[in-house]
């Protein structure tokens, strides 16, 4: 999954302002809190069939890490 795809979900689905969502931003600085991770997790399950919990997502350090983490889970599934 690309950074742009994750950013699209975080802003359009999780309601985060787009400005702080940059590739290198740590999750907290990007506005990604635990509720945003739950919404992200639900969305990944619904739209991409990727089952990854908010706790697992929280292990990512930056938004780029988040995209890579999701990508790895998606590949495992594929």
């Amino acid at each position, binding site marked *: 999954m690309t950074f742009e795809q994750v950013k699209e979900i975080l802003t359009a689905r999780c*309601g985060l302002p787009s400005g702080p969502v940059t590739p290198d931003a740590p999750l907290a600085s990007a506005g990604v809190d*635990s*509720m945003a991770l*739950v919404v992200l997790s639900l969305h990944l399950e619904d739209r991409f069939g990727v089952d990854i919990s*908010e706790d697992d997502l929280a292990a990512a350090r930056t938004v780029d890490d988040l995209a890579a983490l999701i990508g790895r889970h998606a590949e495992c599934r594929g």
Partner: protein
Amino acid sequence: MTDTPGATDRGRTAAVLTGLGAWLPPRRVPNSELCTRIDSSDQWIRERIGIAERRIAEPPVATGDMAVEAAARALASAGVCGADALVLATNTPDRPCPATAPWVAHRLGLPAVAAFDVMAGCSGFLYACTVAAGLIAAGTAQRVLVVGAETMTSLVDPADRATAPIFGDGAGAAVLEAGPPHAEGALGPVVWGSDGSLSDAIAVPAGGARERHRRHLAAPEEHFVQMRGNEVFRHAVRRMSAAARQAAAAAGWGIGDVDRLIAHQANQRITATVADTLGIPAAHAPSNIAQVGNTAAASVPLLLAHAADQGELKPGHKVLLVAFGSGLAWAATTLVWPAGLSARLP
């Protein structure tokens, strides 16, 4: 019967909404005041939960008093002075025993009327409406007063930053009367359910029969509500979205037909995510959580009253109602907003 799992068909006599009342205690607590006791900020609470202030009932005012105020207004809204039964949805009865509803009926001047409490978390009001609709369908009652009232501050640890900002006190009430199922205001098919495997997700650990042997050992915080926030968020979105979708389908509506979504005001981000998941525009999901917080079983009737009062619910609107809370328990139903219904507020 419909094919929808959990859906109930109440037969040929429906419960029709004819009156709506609300009452809020006058004392407002803005986030700034709350944050003198907890490590939080006005901005954090607004962004995370969507709440700016909540109302709190100051002792000796309790659930029963607020229920009386809301119920009296609902009766006045319906233009009637009595009912055959009173069902009070609450998680915060005035006392562990007896039920609060008989006292509310007494205070309303409804002597000897059947009156009982329903505890179903934040879904309590929709559960109570479902019970009332069953009483009406069975011919046991012609008119039922359904009340949702809460003194949630009695269950909230004022020093707990996870729960103290969320909850508020208040009451809402509805009059349901026997009528034809196609009438405006008639409650549609109900989709409801529960999952007791997650009873610990939102719970007050102490004070009940389960912990009676260590009553004197319970820590103070065990008498307050404890909540696993992320888990509740996930299940709230899943259960409310599914129940709402099924209730709309059982009514013969597509989601695109829904004019307004009335969702339990748990957290603005939950409401937004449920609306987004369903494909309902955010502007079609009225909200009052910023002003009143999460009032648990009082939330749905309070939102109905406020949305009706502000003209957000118009005659003929197809309204989808949904709630979710401790239990876990959830419920959804539908109604077409009736002409001539004027909510009574304080």
